[in-house]
């Protein structure tokens, strides 16, 4: 190191920025859960703007510069469009509960299965691999469109992107690990009007993705413990179910928050629920819904083979019943109970039909 000689003018220290720090003197302390995002929501740093004017991508609460470039093309810039009360907790939970498909699944428990069962499992894995593509791509798109002022909600979506990548990965691995292979794609995830990835509003997307789509898939993942033929499959489905439950929780809590903070949008949300119920609860995206290739595969697995297809199909109806019931209860939890009582929703009738 040189002797203490000051730098040339062009490298002089500029300390003017030190007089422009944001709110100062903050000492957030770790609680029993460590130092969480909730713990640092103190003072002005915890102020969530109802409408964000942050067009430069600055961290919430930092000092704005008048000359900063407005690089943010943030479509989502009002709190009610994306917020949920427990965003920070869901994010921290996601961080805590990550797992590895490479090392946390007991792949060594895979044993050769009868051809019909292996085919059915591989078809289902092909389907889930394809479906998780949607659940990974679409939240990612919305992260880029959302102001960083709502970083907690954005971070939950980032965690979902990670979760879905892991799901894509684990299903592909299962399909290629036990003497099978990938089967035919379902095509259920592409380009239908009103489908998840064509939504131009975040809540519209979330209603379809988190509440109806992932809610239905959650039930199927949980059922994996019944139709899984070995510990590897049962573990795979169980761990995916945990992640999926977190995504569903996002959807329920966001819808609840929106219903409470933007009541003028309730009728609009009801319309999204109308569409979601018509398409996703009965359409190709739900193997437990209308008869499709993946529902046939599910019936084979639930029965334990194609010769027990009928038994498996009956179990499929049990899945359907659970899906419908839990869907209704989630929408009720989200604050939209009326639709099941005033005849607007066809789901109660569908539920009754499965009794």
């Amino acid at each position, binding site marked *: 190191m040189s002797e203490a000689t000051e730098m040339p003018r062009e490298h002089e220290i500029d300390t003017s920025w030190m007089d422009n720090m944001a709110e100062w003197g903050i000492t957030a302390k770790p609680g*029993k*859960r*460590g130092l969480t995002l909730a713990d640092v929501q103190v003072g002005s740093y915890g102020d969530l703007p109802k409408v964000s004017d942050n067009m430069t991508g600055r961290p919430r609460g930092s000092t704005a510069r008048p000359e900063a470039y407005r690089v943010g093309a943030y479509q989502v810039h009002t709190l009610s469009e994306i917020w949920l009360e427990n965003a920070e*907790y869901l994010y*921290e*939970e996601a961080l*805590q*509960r*990550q*797992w*590895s498909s490479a*090392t*946390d699944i007991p792949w060594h428990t895979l044993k050769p299965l009868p051809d019909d069962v292996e085919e059915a499992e591989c078809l289902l894995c092909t389907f889930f691999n394809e479906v998780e593509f949607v659940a990974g791509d679409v939240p990612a798109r919305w992260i880029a469109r959302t102001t960083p002022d709502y970083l907690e909600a954005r971070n939950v979506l980032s965690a979902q992107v990670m979760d879905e990548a892991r799901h894509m990965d684990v299903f592909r691995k299962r399909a290629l690990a036990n003497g099978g292979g990938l089967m035919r794609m379902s095509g259920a995830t592409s380009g239908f009007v009103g489908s998840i990835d064509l939504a131009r509003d975040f809540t519209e997307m979330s209603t379809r993705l988190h509440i109806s789509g992932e809610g239905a898939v*959650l039930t199927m993942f*949980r*059922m994996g*413990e*019944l139709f*899984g033929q*070995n*510990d590897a499959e*049962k*573990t795979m489905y*169980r*761990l995916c*179910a*945990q992640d*999926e*439950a*977190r995504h*569903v*929780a996002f959807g*329920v*809590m966001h819808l609840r928050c929106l219903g409470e903070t933007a009541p003028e949008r309730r009728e609009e949300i009801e319309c999204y629920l109308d569409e979601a119920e018509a398409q996703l609860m009965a359409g190709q995206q739900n193997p437990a819904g209308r008869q499709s290739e993946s529902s046939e595969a599910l019936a084979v697995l639930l029965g334990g083979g194609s010769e027990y297809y009928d038994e498996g199909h009956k179990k499929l109806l*049990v899945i359907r019943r*659970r899906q419908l019931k*839990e869907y209704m*209860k*989630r929408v*009720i*939890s989200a604050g939209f109970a009326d639709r099941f009582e005033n005849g607007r929703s066809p789901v109660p009738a569908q539920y009754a039909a499965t009794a």
Partner: protein
Amino acid sequence: MEVFPSQEWFQKVREAYNSDRELHSGGGGACDTTAGFSIGENRYFIEFAGLDCSQVRQCSEEDLATTDFVIEMPMETWRSMLQDVQKNGKASSNMTLNSIDLELEEGIAFSPIDDQYKQDLFYRYNQNFQDFFDASSRVQTTFES
């Protein structure tokens, strides 16, 4: 030798669960929730905070109403589940909490305030509860007659 169900039994399981991170499987992790166990005439309150089970105690019916969700099964099912854990070191795949829940029409978990969001916590934290009961393999257990 501890009798199931009893405060002592649950305390021993809690100690086993908290003492060895090897018992916490991948996909578990920190969670914060309260739950109730309804076992015959007995009620137990359990709380997870972070990576630990922070408390488990006998409680009243009113206490159960404050929990996020309650797991209720016939006594025979509780016994079968735990005997399976005792025999195999952990639950067999058809005797996990999830499997048992799926086999029953109404399931085994419910929210005392009938809030599906709360009931879904049974799904979100399923691995922790499973690990907890799997930890009972380290507690010599008898069953009340």
